[in-house]
């Protein structure tokens, strides 16, 4: 009897605690969606019910900014950046794991050290470098320095350990060149590894802020995070319009997350295995 009661109370407490936490997690999302339908005055007054200003908010947003272009800029940076990162990092991860040598092993150790370098320490020299290469205010200038990620190389190398060596040997016997083995055997076999890395890197690029803020200056180059930030820091921010922009900035990552949730968590945990 006693045990039963203790158990029940504990269960009730656990559910209450998790319920409160889940509510707190979700509340800002609800607030974002509700506020997108309200006028700026209502948002700053904390109105908690749906309003009728959604279309006027979207209209005002479209009036001030070229929404399509902003989205195109963000998508371009995120997709190209992700593809290049996956290509370069998986080649390197494969190369370090399959073709081992003492020299490359040393370089790999050094490479892992670069994971510790904080971006703040790189941004000024990178800015000067980009200025001298005449790449300021270009999307290539945003993408290029962010491609080289020791973390993703490490992730691919760890995953390559699970790639069966017999497949490689069989392909060699069949006369495939090494790059062909990589492209036609390794890539298809490792597609779930690629999927996991894709999500992590895509989100990193889509959400990137500090480096694009430094590189991109003209309005027609800016990505959604930059536009959102400048709207939020305006002297009289229009919060209704801002919420529409926030929903638009969050939606793609939410979609990617829900479509590939399992791979996302797998990719995240890949770093500690």
């Amino acid at each position: 009897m006693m045990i039963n009661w203790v158990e029940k109370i504990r269960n009730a407490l656990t559910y209450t605690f998790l319920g409160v936490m889940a509510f707190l997690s979700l509340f800002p999302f609800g607030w974002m969606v509700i506020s997108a339908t309200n006028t700026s005055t209502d948002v700053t007054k904390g109105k908690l019910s749906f309003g009728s200003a959604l279309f006027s908010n979207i209209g005002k947003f479209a009036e001030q900014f070229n929404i399509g272009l902003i989205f195109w800029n963000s998508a371009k940076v995120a997709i190209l950046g992700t593809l290049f990162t996956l290509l370069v990092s998986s080649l390197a991860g494969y190369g370090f794991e399959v073709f081992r040598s003492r020299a490359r092993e040393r370089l790999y150790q050094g490479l892992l050290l670069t994971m510790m370098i904080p971006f703040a320490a790189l941004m000024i020299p990178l800015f000067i470098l980009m200025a001298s290469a005449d790449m300021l205010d270009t999307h290539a200038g945003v993408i290029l320095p962010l491609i080289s990620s020791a973390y993703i190389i490490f992730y691919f190398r760890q995953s390559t350990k699970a790639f069966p060596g017999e497949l490689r040997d069989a392909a060699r016997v069949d006369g495939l060149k090494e790059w062909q083995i990589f492209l036609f055997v390794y890539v298809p076999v490792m597609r779930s590894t690629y999927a996991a890395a894709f999500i992590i890197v895509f989100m990193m690029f889509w959400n990137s802020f500090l480096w694009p803020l430094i590189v991109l200056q003209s309005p027609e180059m800016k990505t959604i995070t930059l536009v959102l930030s400048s709207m939020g820091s305006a002297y009289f921010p229009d919060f209704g319009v801002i919420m529409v922009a926030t929903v638009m900035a969050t939606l793609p990552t939410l979609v990617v997350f829900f479509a590939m949730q399992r791979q996302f968590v797998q990719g995240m945990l890949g770093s500690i295995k």
Partner: protein
Amino acid sequence: MGQAARPASRRFYDINGWCFVSAALALIAAFMVYPICQSLWMSLHSGQGTVTEFVGLGNIGRLTSDPIFIKALSNTFVFLIVQVPIMIVLALVMASCLNMPNLKAKGIIRTIIFLPCVTSLVAYSVLFKSMFSYDGVINSTLAYLGLISEPIPWLSDPFWAKVVIIIAVTWRWTGYNMIFYLAAMQNIDKSIYEAARIDGISAFRRFISITIPMLKPVILFTTVTSTIGTLQLFDEAMNITSGGPSDSTLTLSLYIYNLSFKFVPNFGYAATVSYVIVILVAILAFIQFYAARERE
């Protein structure tokens, strides 16, 4: 075996090996190694824009007498000391709740609590800025519940502005850390818990004497990564409070940004400040490495 079959095996390995890794190495060299060295060289110079002179270690002297730098450094430490422990404990408790064997709706709750990690730092910062405005939803809800008699000046008071940043960062990252704990907890052998239960050890004691020790490596990993993340805090401070009021939420990264791109640029001094972060991160990474080694 395959190796022995090829006479030119070593050369074959080397050529292919270098081909596969060269692109990554070139990029790392150009965009990581070169800038970090350049940064060190720049930190020995001072001046405005491109007109600089060699000052040797002069910038370090300037650091110690720069009240804004000291403010930014102490803010960063306040964020660290308050936020990281709150988040780690919260994530641990949530993970152990979610790890209870006969809990219903486990998957949904886990997904909901993880959801904040998907938002961009800028988007949620702007969101929090609107929620914590003077007449905003947080103040009106607290007033409605009778918890406060007058609105809290969240964003205009130095103390409360720090609180908002801490709440915001905790909201964004707790679920992220929880996932690591949950994964580690699922690797703990269930029979240990069973044995402890049979011995009549309470749930709380099981958490303290089984779960925590078993999770020590993961807790260390998340603590170090969270600390490194907090040392680099930028997006939130920039977008929620712009470092204000009166520099009370200024972080080191934001100060570096201001020194380089907002005020009259002094790249040399900014590089010196950035090396403070480098050194702090290096110390932390060293601690993690050392602790991980001790384990083995």
